[in-house]
């Protein structure tokens, strides 16, 4: 699934049948490459984050989680945490580990069942997800193509 099609999808808490917010962004972590967290647009000024492991089901109309307890205000995150927004890949430049630029990340393709990253879609083409080495505040670093 493309992340762009998941953006805006409603997140629902199963225990309380509440709408918690909508999906706005995500963060990626390497080895193995996967979505580590989803960032939600919620009521109020600040967004909330939710670790991927809290996702119950990524449905066609809504994403369900067990309860709202899995949510954490975005501003409470330390920059060292995996879910920190510095690990958001969208719009970021891509560098190979040999220091060559490979475009900008426009979208990501992921498996909605387990959150694993299938591919990064960049302005210069598709990069298989298993090449991801890291996402930082400056760039998304990938292994060089063979």
């Amino acid at each position, binding site marked *: 699934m493309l992340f762009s099609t998941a953006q805006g999808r409603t997140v629902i808490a199963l225990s309380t049948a509440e709408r918690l917010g909508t999906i706005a962004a995500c963060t990626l972590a390497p080895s193995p490459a996967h979505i580590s967290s989803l960032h939600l647009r919620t009521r109020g000024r600040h967004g909330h984050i939710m670790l991927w492991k809290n996702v119950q089901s990524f449905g066609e109309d809504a994403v369900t989680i067990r309860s709202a307890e899995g949510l954490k205000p975005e501003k409470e995150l330390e920059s060292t945490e995996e879910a920190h927004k*510095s690990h958001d890949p969208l719009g*970021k430049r891509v*560098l*190979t*580990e*040999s*220091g*060559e*630029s490979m475009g900008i990340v426009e979208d990501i393709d992921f498996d909605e069942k387990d959150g694993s990253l299938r591919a990064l879609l960049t302005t210069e083409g598709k990069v298989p997800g298993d090449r991801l*080495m*890291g*996402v*930082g*505040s*400056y*760039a*998304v*670093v990938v292994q060089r193509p063979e």
Partner: protein
Amino acid sequence: MSTYLRAREISQEPVVTLAGEDVARVKDVVFDPMRGSITCFTLSGRGLLAGPLKRALLWKKVHALGPDAVMIRDESSLEEDDEAARERIEAPGGGSVIGARVMTEEGTALGTVNDVIIETSGTPKVIGYEVGPATRTDRTVFLPVIKPKSVSGEMMVVPAATADFTAGDPAGLPAAAEGLRRRLEQEA
């Protein structure tokens, strides 16, 4: 595939960890002109207006040198201080080849070093210098440099035969260097 980088292009390149964080920017590339190798980088802080960063990056700690970034494993790849860089800059000819005059053993000035050309396939190696107009020729040429005789901050003395093996662009340097190497072997 061979790729060529100029020392001037490398300065200002970001230093990026494999986790994608930029930790510094390259200020200067420090060479060992006698060996034709890069020894270290001096750094400045991120951002264009940032001042010098008092930490050096030794060549052996570099993961890769690319056209768009210098890659390092993580922030601990930087030295705690810039002592190491200072030592190397103070070595004869260290750091300041740009601006040095190139002189043959026979006393012919070939021009002034404008830039250093580095080949980056495999271990980066200095393969030559872009040399600005000498008094007589009035054009920019690329000089292969193998085994300079001696180097100081103001001058680099090269074998006389070097003048016969100039190239018009960086891509012509390996061939020029090969020709020069053969000539030097014959002369020896």
